[in-house]
């Protein structure tokens, strides 16, 4: 099992220079480029970005769910002291679903349509915890009760299509927490849900997280979900981390012009504004990134140096990093 007695100060998950390249024909595409972050025990890291930013690829790389035939993975993913990138597949299988589990956006894609809810929740319990048929079934009913599904015993014999979208996502969460993992990677877990259901699922995740002391990597494009749910935030753009800090600092004093721009794009919910301030241009294609900072072509602060050299994610303040040669001033308040 996991080596015990690691000091509390060591982060649970420590990602260093994680790089994923996809081969397609003669071309190689770098989907994520030297991404680094830490997730302390029992805390929530929000991984936020637009489409093509590499947030889902990061999740799949952490779970080692990318086929080695297609993807080349470099860097280090230290989880509870072990480097997952170097772990043999057999050992990885004992980690996956046991200490590290994942929640996907679309519950129907992670549920088996022809297996009963009960059998699906029992599978990790029997596989990882070695529970017998009866014990696993009892535990499965308990788990359904934990995720607030009414009449859990009866639900065990139902099939995914008999449940609503929100209920299905609760079942997926029940499966993810079945073995009380130390870390859950949640990839857009509420994006397919209505807003009142989203609120309930976020409340549920928060409650489970504090009760079980799990850490969560919350991957989302929704800045509201991050603001509400995460302790720390990493903003991604075109496969690179561009800003990382405590949630309060990222939303209160964004230093990377992209983060600042993104926050201004969200329509105000309190005040009144005549016009939204969008970000001009489009997200660059990963096959055709500009030589320097990938955001430079859209950036109002870009200078010549930005177009030549890729800036590193460096400290701009204590515990606040931004990958920018000309970051926004600290005093700047962006209030979305």
């Amino acid at each position, binding site marked *: 099992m996991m080596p015990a007695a690691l000091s509390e100060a060591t982060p649970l998950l420590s990602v260093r220079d994680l790089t994923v390249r996809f081969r397609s024909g003669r071309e190689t595409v770098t989907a994520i480029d030297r991404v680094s972050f830490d997730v302390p025990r029992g805390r929530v890291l929000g991984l936020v970005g637009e489409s093509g930013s590499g947030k889902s690829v990061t999740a799949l790389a952490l779970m080692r769910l990318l086929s080695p035939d297609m993807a080349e993975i470099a860097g280090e993913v230290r989880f509870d002291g072990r480097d997952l990138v170097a772990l043999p597949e057999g050992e990885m299988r004992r980690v996956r679903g046991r200490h590290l589990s994942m929640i996907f956006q679309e519950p129907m894609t992670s549920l088996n349509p022809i297996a009963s809810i009960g059998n699906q929740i029992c599978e990790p319990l029997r596989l990882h915890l070695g529970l017998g048929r009866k014990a696993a079934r009892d535990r499965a009913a308990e788990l359904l009760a934990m995720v607030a599904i009414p009449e859990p015993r009866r639900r065990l014999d139902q099939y995914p299509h008999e449940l609503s979208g929100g209920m299905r996502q609760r079942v997926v969460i029940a499966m993810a927490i079945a073995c009380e993992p130390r870390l859950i990677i949640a990839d857009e877990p509420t994006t397919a849900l209505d807003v*009142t259901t989203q609120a309930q699922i976020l409340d549920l995740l928060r409650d489970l997280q504090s009760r079980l002391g799990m850490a969560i990597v919350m991957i989302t494009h929704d800045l509201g979900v991050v*603001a509400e749910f995460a302790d720390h935030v990493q903003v991604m753009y075109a496969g690179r981390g561009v800003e990382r800090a405590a949630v309060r600092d990222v939303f209160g004093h964004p230093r990377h012009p992209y983060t600042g721009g993104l926050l201004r*794009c969200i329509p105000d919910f309190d005040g009144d504004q005549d*016009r939204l301030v969008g970000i001009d241009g489009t997200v660059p294609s990963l096959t055709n990134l500009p030589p320097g900072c990938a955001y430079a072509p859209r950036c109002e602060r870009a200078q010549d140096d930005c177009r030549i050299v890729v800036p590193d994610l460096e400290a701009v303040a204590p515990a606040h990093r931004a990958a920018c040669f000309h970051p926004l001033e600290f005093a700047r308040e962006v209030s979305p």
Partner: protein
Amino acid sequence: MIAEEALVVATSLRKTYPIYGGTFIKRRTGTVHAVDDVSFAIRRGETLGLVGESGCGKSTTGRLLMRLIEPDGGSVRFDGVEMTTLDRRRLNEERRRIQLMFQDPSSAFNPRMRVGQIVSEPMRLAGAPDRAQRARVAELLPLVGLTEEQAERFPHQFSGGQRQRIGIARALALRPEMIVCDEPVSALDVSIQAQVVNLLQDLQQQFGLTYLFISHDLRVVRHIADRVAVMYLGRIVELAPKAELYGSPQHPYTRMLLSAVPKTKPGATRTPTAAAGEAGPAPGGRQGCLFAPRCPHVMPRCRDEIPAFRPVADRHSAACHLLG
């Protein structure tokens, strides 16, 4: 709302669909009330936001307005003309004045047509000569932030935001007075969303367009709409000017909906569990308030008496027994 100043008036619109069940022999086992007694009016140049969760009937309402779906009951008057009884020919003429914009325009484009053909297709169908079509395309593309040269390209060569601009250009081709925008920015990244929202607002100003803006995104609707209607399971439960609706929501469902929107100021968190339950058919049928099973303030009366949709303040109406 006074009928004279309204461009479009919908009254008691109704659309139901049969549900079929049975293992071997399919027979009708029930009815879905997609749109149930929906009434509203939109003034010329106004934007009415229509919000609600999936399955509440907001898209069906938009299509009923254009008679892309035949209503089972009720009336739509567009600029004084009753749409529901028009014959095909007259309907096609009137319908040029109302256009539809989809969430994902690329699913509405023929991938083998060039952008110029896509944009001018409504004109071709209306019998406009080639020259006029080409001239209009040259006029429209710069208007939506594309270049004339891009008329020769195919839709797959464009990003999502640009494709939505093509969709807007096509919707404008016949110089409509009104556009039904069905989740026009929902599939776009936030940084692109703002560009498209701004474009829609600019075009509205320039051409005096009237919008029915259908969206589940309460932030975007708050930004773009003048008034907002909230739908729940086929019925409008509240309708008010946006400042009123967002500032002092009256219907318990509107309150639940608004409280569920994540705040973007860290620290300013939602009250947990303010949102409860899910939208689903009311166990007691449709004779009471459909929100009763989820409502924190439910009273016995709510279960067997449909609350009337009535004014609660100036230009502000809601359907709730608490407010009677």
